[in-house]
C-alpha cells in the first residue's frame, strides 16, 4: 500500500468516527512478539518430516535419524509424520508436551526471488508482492496503529523495516545495556536542540526507552549472581526481552541471524544444531522469565524469509528455497499440534522440484493471531495486511 492510500484510509475512517482513535481495538494486556530468523533457516532439518523416505533420499549426509529412544541423535516425535531436532530436547520439546507450541509447515511468502534481502523486506513490509512497495510502511507499524494503548518496541540495534511508519518506534539492543553516561540535565538539553527537527521524536523516544530499560534490567545483576551460570548470547537477550515485555512493551520485534547454511551445516550436531539449540534455550528462557501469568498472555511467532532446498547441495549444505516451518508459541496457544494445510512430500509436490510449497502465508497466520489476541476485525486487518481475508488456523 502506498503511504498516501494509508493516510486516506485512516482519515476517511477518522472522519466517519467521532474521534481519531474510535476505530481502534480495545486496549488489552496481550503481548505479541515476532522473532525473525534472518538467513533462511533450514526448516526441514529442525521440524523434520521423518515419515518421508523422500526426505532421507534427498539428504544423504545431513538428515536427522527417525525417532529412536535408544539414539540420542535421533529426532523427537511430534506426531505421526513430523519430529523435532534433538538439540531442542530440553527447551522446546517440553513446551510441545505442555501444548504451548504449534508448528506451521509449508509457511512463507509468495515472493519467488529467493533473495534473502528482498524476501525479508517482503515480510517486514507485509504488503502485497504485486505492486509497488512503500518502504515507509511496515506491517508492525501498521498493527501498532490499529491498537489503542500499543507500546511497540524493536529489540534490534538498528530500527527494522517492519516498524517503519509515521511514528518513531523505539529500538534497543538488549545485548548491551549499560548505565548511561549522558545525565538527565544533558539529555534535556540535547532534546531541546531537536525541537522541531525531523529527528525530534526519535531523540525523545531514545532517552525514554534508555531509562526504562536501565531500570527494568537493574535487578538483573542481583538475580544473576544467585545462579551458578548466567545466561549469555541469545538466551540472555531473550530473558531481557521477557523482562521488558512484562513491564513496559506489548508489541515487539527481534531478529536472530546466522542461518544461511550453504556449506557443512551438520545434522544432529554441528553448526545448525548449535544455532537451533541456542534459539530453543532462549525461547524457553523467555517463557520462564515471563512467569506463567504473563506467558499465558503472550504470543510469539518465529519466522524466516524462506526455507532451503529440499535436497542437500554438493557441499553438505542447502541453498535458498521457498516454504518454511513457522513456530507459534505462548502460554495459551493451542499447541502440541501441526497447524495449517499440508501436502505429502514427494518430488512432484515440491515447488519448482526444489523446495517446499507455501500453503500458509505469513500474512494470514499473523492476521489470524493478532485479530484473536487483540480483538481486531476484518476492517482493522484491511489496514495491517491490505487484501488479506481472515481465516482460522485454530492457534488460539
Amino acid at each position: 500500500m502506498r503511504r498516501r492510500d494509508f493516510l486516506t484510509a485512516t482519515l476517511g475512517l477518522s472522519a466517519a468516527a467521532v474521534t481519531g482513535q474510535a476505530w481502534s481495538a480495545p486496549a488489552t494486556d496481550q503481548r505479541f512478539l515476532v522473532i525473525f530468523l534472518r538467513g533462511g533457516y533450514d526448516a526441514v532439518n529442525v521440524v523434520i518430516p521423518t515419515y518421508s523416505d523422500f526426505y532421507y533420499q534427498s539428504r544423504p549426509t545431513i538428515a536427522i535419524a527417525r525417532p529412536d529412544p535408544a539414539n540420542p541423535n535421533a529426532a523427537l516425535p511430534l506426531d505421526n509424520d513430523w519430529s523435532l531436532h534433538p538439540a531442542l530436547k530440553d527447551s522446546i520439546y517440553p513446551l510441545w508436551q505442555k501444548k504451548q507450541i504449534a508448528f506451521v509447515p509449508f509457511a512463507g511468502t509468495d515472493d519467488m526471488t529467493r533473495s534473502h534481502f528482498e524476501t525479508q523486506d517482503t515480510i517486514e513490509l507485509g504488503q502485497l508482492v504485486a505492486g509497488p512497495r512503500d518502504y515507509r510502511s511496515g506491517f508492525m507499524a501498521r498493527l501498532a496503529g490499529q491498537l489503542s494503548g500499543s507500546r511497540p518496541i524493536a529489540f534490534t540495534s538498528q530500527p527494522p523495516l517492519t516498524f517503519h511508519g509515521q511514528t518513531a518506534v523505539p529500538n534497543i539492543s538488549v545485548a548491551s545495556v549499560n548505565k548511561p553516561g549522558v545525565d538527565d540535565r544533558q539529555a534535556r538539553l540535547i532534546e531541546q536542540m531537536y525541537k522541531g527537527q525531523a529527528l525530534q521524536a526519535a531523540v525523545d523516544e531514545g532517552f525514554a526507552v534508555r531509562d526504562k530499560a536501565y531500570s527494568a534490567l537493574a535487578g538483573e545483576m542481583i538475580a544473576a549472581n544467585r545462579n551458578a551460570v548466567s545466561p549469555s548470547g541469545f538466551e540472555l537477550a531473550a530473558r531481557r526481552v521477557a523482562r521488558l515485555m512484562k513491564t513496559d512493551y506489548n508489541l515487539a520485534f527481534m531478529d536472530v541471524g546466522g542461518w544461511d547454511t550453504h556449506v557443512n551445516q551438520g545434522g544432529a550436531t554441528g553448526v545448525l544444531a548449535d544455532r537451533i539449540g541456542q534459539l530453543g534455550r532462549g525461547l524457553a528462557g523467555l517463557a520462564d522469565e515471563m512467569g506463567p501469568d504473563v506467558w499465558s498472555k503472550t504470543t510469539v511467532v518465529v519466522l524466516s524469509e524462506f526455507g532451503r532446498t529440499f535436497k542437500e547441495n554438493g557441499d553438505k549444505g542447502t541453498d535458498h528455497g521457498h516454504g518454511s516451518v513457522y513456530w507459534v508459541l505462548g502460554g495459551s496457544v493451542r499447541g502440541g499440534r501441526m497447524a495449517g494445510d499440508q501436502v505429502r512430500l514427494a518430488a512432484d509436490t515440491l515447488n519448482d522440484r526444489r523446495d517446499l510449497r507455501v500453503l500458509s502465508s505469513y500474512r494470514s497466520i499473523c492476521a489470524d493471531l493478532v485479530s484473536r489476541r487483540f480483538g481486531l476485525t476484518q476492517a482493522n486487518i484491511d489496514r495491517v495486511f491490505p487484501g488479506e481475508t481472515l481465516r482460522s488456523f485454530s492457534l488460539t
Partner: protein
Amino acid sequence: MVARQTQLVLAAALIAGSAPGGAFAASTPDVAPLVDRVTWGDTSQSVAEAERLGPERWLKQQLHPSAQAALPAPVQAQIDALRISTTPVAKLVVDMDAQGKAAGKLQDPAERQAAQSAYQKAMYDLRQQAASRSLLRDLYSPNQLQEQMTWFWFNHFNVQADKRDIRAMVGDYEDQAIRPHALGKFKDLLKAADLHPAMLRYLDNDQNAVGHINENYAREILELHTMGVGSGYSQQDVEQMARVLTGVGVSLNPDPPKLKPQQQGFYVRRGLMEFNPARHDFGEKVVLGRKISGTGLSEFESTLDALARQPATAKHISTKLALYFIGDAPPALVDKMSATFLRSDGDIAETLNTLFHSDAFRASLGRKVKDPVHYVVSAVRLAYDGRPIANTGPMRGWIDRLGQSLYGRETPDGYPLEDTAWSGPGQLTAIFELARQIGSGSSGLFKPDGGEDQPAFPQLQNALYYARTKDHLSPQTQTALAQAKSPAEWNTFFLSSPEFLHR
C-alpha cells in the same frame, strides 16, 4: 565530452554569478557544506583547499585524484610499519595457515592452547591493521573522495573478515581490489573484487565445482554486485551462472594440481586465486540469453564484462551511489546517472560527476544523516584538525559500538545506506553517549601501542567553528551550547547537535 560540458556550464555560472544547471559557481559563498559531503568531514585545511581552487577545480581533483598525493609523514610511517604493508598477501596467508596447522598439531594441551591463541591473536591483528590503515587514510588522505568510495565499494562488494582465513586477506582486498578502481571503470572493479580470494572464500565459491554445484556466489553477483534483484534474471540464469563459476577458487599450495594434459592449458594462477579446470564445468551455458561455450576462466571474466554493461547494472549502481551521497534516489537523477554510466563504459568518476552537479545533490547538502563511520571519522577530523593521531583503536571501538564495524557486516548486502537505518531512537542515544566520550578527552587516540600517551584535547571551538559553523547553528543549538558548564560538556552538546549529526 562531459568535461567540456562542465566547463561550459561553469562559464555560464560565472557570467550569471549564480549556479544554474547544477555547476558550482566559483564564488560559492560557502564551500564547507560541499566539502563536508565529498570528504570524510570538514577540516580547516580541506575547506581552505577547496576555497583556494574553487569548487569546480577542487571537485575535479577529487574525482581524478593524483597518485602522488601524500599522507603526512608520521601517518605514512605508521602504515609502513604494519605487517600487512611489509609482507605480500600470498605469503601472509600461507604463513598464517602454517602457523594455525602447527598449533593444532601440538601434543601438550597447554602448549597447543597457547599456540592457538597466539594464532588467533595474529589473525585478529591482521584485520585490525587493515582497519587502521583504512581509517588513517580516511582521516588524512588528500584524496578524500577516493577514500569515501573505497568504503562504499567495499560495502558494495562486502566480505566479512571473520569467516575462515579472510582476516589475512581483507587488507589486500581493500587495498588492491577495491581502492585502485574506486573512481575508475566499474568493469575493472567488478573483476578485481569478484576474482579476489577474499570474495571467493566469503561466498563459498572455492567449494563450487562441477557435480558439486553451490549457487550462493552466482546469485549474489547478479543480485548484489551487478543487476539488482527483480531486474530480469531468472532462477535458470542463477543456475547457469553457478556453472560458469565452477573451478574458480583459492589455493595456498605453491604447486598446480595434477591435471590431464588437455586441461593444463586452461589452468590459471594469480596469487592465491586459482582456476582449476578439473573442477570446472566446460559444458555450454546460457546466461541472460548469452551463449557461453566452455573456455575456462574467460567464461567468468567475459560474463562479468557483459553484466557490467547491462542497463539494470547501471541503474542499480546509480541508485546506490545516490543513496550513499544524498540519502535518496530520485528516478530522474538515477536515469541521468545511468545514462552517464552506460555512455562512459561504466566510468565511476563520470557517473559521480553527474550526481554532484544535480539539483538534488545541492539541495541535500547538510541533510544526510551520518552513518557511524562518517560520524566517528568526521568527529576526529574536526576535533584534532589535522594533527595526526597515534592509535586508531578508540575509533574502531566507537564504530563497533555504533554497529558498523569495518569488515564486520556478516551478510553480503553490506550495511544499509538509507538515513532511516542510522537514526532510530536506540542509535541516537548511542551516538549521544559517544559524543560525550569523544568530547571529553583524547581517549587514547594519541597513545601509540606500547608508548606514552601524548597530551591532547578535542578542540571543536576552533578557527573553522568561528569562521564557518557558528553562524549557521540553529537558535536551539546555540542555546544548549551556551548552557555548557565545561569545554567537555560543550563538545558533548556540539557533537550531539543536529548540525553535526548531518552532513
